[in-house]
């Protein structure tokens, strides 16, 4: 386990298809104003979006670096052809620092040099962690469906720091087929970027109009966003020091500040959750994966020790 006990907040890659201008404005604000340690930048979902944002990427990386953030380039979660492999090779060559591998192809390209295993690499046990650490992995963002009990065991055994997603719609599946294009009656080859209309993903509801999932091109996410404000304390007790927030259209600067305040014991998680809902009025929340329950569940914990401590201090 790492002896560094500081809390590190990481802003995950923007998973949705935001136009270049929006992406630049978003990251400039994060660089100038937001309290986060690491910013993961790059296209993790669809290679067809990459050329559209290529022009603004260098200035984003430069601005974030100048602001003192650690910048990590994230790679695609699904790589299917030579063109995409070549794009990953170019990404690695252009990286100012670490690269996050989200597919075994990128693990192969990065082998022997320091790199990060991203959440789309299936790491569920200490054997896999140990093997990857031996190949050069220096940090791991764990898969999203892992229950807290398994996270705690991994944290106790891990030779490298672990990061856990604590906010945002949860990526649940990826496909070679584009569901956004399919919803418009198009194929992936002729998608006309159907995904750019939905900055937080396109909601998928049941026939009874219950919100269920969210489409994002090749990716399918949860309709409810992860909110682990109430689980930051037990995660910290288990030795997890790195927390990832996935960008949405709501105020991410304020969202990062909320998670920092709760992680440092300055704000009660229950109170922070109310504020989080106001920052993201279009999102509902869930924490079921942490409890080994259905991922869409929101498990209400008894008033936490963290809350009692904050209240006692007042």
């Amino acid at each position, binding site marked *: 386990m790492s002896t560094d006990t500081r809390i590190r907040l990481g802003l995950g890659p923007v998973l949705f298809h935001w136009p270049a201008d929006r992406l630049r404005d978003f990251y400039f604000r994060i660089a100038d104003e937001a309290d986060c340690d690491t910013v993961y930048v790059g296209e993790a979902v669809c290679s067809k979006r990459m050329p559209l944002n290529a022009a603004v990427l260098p200035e984003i990386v430069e601005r974030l670096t100048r602001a003192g953030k650690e910048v990590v380039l994230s790679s695609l*979660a*699904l*790589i*299917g*052809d*030579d063109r*995409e*492999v070549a794009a990953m090779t170019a990404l690695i060559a252009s990286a100012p620092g670490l690269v996050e591998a989200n*597919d*075994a*192809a*990128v*693990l*192969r390209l990065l*082998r022997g040099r320091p790199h990060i295993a991203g959440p789309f690499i*299936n790491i*569920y*046990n*200490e*054997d*896999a*962690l140990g*093997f990857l650490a031996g190949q050069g992995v220096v940090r791991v963002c764990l*898969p*999203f*469906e892992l229950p807290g009990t398994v996270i705690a*065991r*991994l944290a106790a*055994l891990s030779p490298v720091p672990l990061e856990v997603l604590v906010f945002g719609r*949860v990526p*649940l*599946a*990826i*496909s*070679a*087929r*584009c*569901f956004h294009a*399919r*919803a418009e009656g198009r*194929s*992936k080859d002729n998608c006309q970027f159907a995904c750019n209309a939905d900055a937080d993903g*396109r*909601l*998928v*509801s*049941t*026939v009874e109009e*219950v919100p*269920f*999932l969210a*489409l994002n091109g090749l990716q*399918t996410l949860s309709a409810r966003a992860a909110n682990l404000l109430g689980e930051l304390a037990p995660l910290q007790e288990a030795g997890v020091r790195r927390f990832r927030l996935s960008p949405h259209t709501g105020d991410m600067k304020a969202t990062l500040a909320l998670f920092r305040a709760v992680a440092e014991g300055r704000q009660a998680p229950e109170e922070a959750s109310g504020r989080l809902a106001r920052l993201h009025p279009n999102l509902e929340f869930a924490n*079921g*994966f942490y409890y*080994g329950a*259905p*991922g*869409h*569940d929101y498990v209400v914990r008894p008033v936490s020790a963290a809350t009692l401590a904050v209240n006692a201090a007042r």
Partner: protein
Amino acid sequence: MSAALQTTTVTKPEIVAPAGTPAALVAAINAGADTVYCGFRDATNARNYPGLNFTAEDLKEGLAYAHARGRKVNVAINTYASAGSTGAWHRAIDTAADLGADAVIMADIGLLDYTARRHPKLRRHLSVQAGASTLPSIEYYYESFGISRMILPRMFTVEEIAELKTRVPIEIECFIFGSLSPMTEGRCSLSAYATGRAPNLCGVCSPAEFVRYDTVEGMLVCRLGDFAVNAFDASEPAGYPTICKGRFIAGDSATAAYVFEEPECLNAATHIGTLRRAGICAFKIEGRQRGRFYVAEVVGAFRELIDAEANGEPLARHNGAMEQLRRLAEGGEETQGALKRGWR
């Protein structure tokens, strides 16, 4: 074994058939399967359903039955072991090795590493659950764990498969028949989101204990956990509520649609010649959850077609077998899936 199989000079791809039970293993071998794959009766395999799978004793008997007839048995240990629980997976691997399994089918990096070090002579096949889909990812598993074969994800056209095979240093096994997931396997938590149980950690997808059917305003609604996954009127046959094959409303759409995939069955019978000539060494039939009669029928039909194709006979002369496969396709609807251009 048929006379044709012994006399032909063409290298025919193996038929790799599913066996959810010892009876299905016998049925598959008797119907002409070259290889059968099966799993243990626990969460170490991706078809961990009640009433299915093999004890160590079952596997021992199955191996004896297969080996006496010159056939093979591959053992699927293709889920992911949770931290602190790897012992059960290690025991499954050790048992498969000790009993003389012909190969183990695996996806977990940690377990592949364990097997490569502990049982270097046991053939390791990379499960489709590993989702290796490019040359560097295949190289990653080959160089790291010495895999002999990979089972290709169902995302490529026939042309792409043929091209990939020319560059890959190992054997490639392709799915030719059965239920098709549009999602990259080993990367899907949809079932866990609705039920808390999914393929990677539990070896199940849309498990039956979470399934409910009820009638609402004349429609048969099928549910998985808290979610209605589909609704059928009296004119439609009701399907099983697998999330990726359900009907949903996307965005502002006025009607529910199959947002991910229609409930179809892959049938690649028309591609067996092209795939054989491309050097694909094994044709995999999905369906360890299926009964022995189904398995025997599918294997029998493919035995006839693969032998005929290798002998240079036009498949048009084997309409009976083609028709039989069409009839066995799930819900009566068949698809060539990603094999045909345009699926993506």
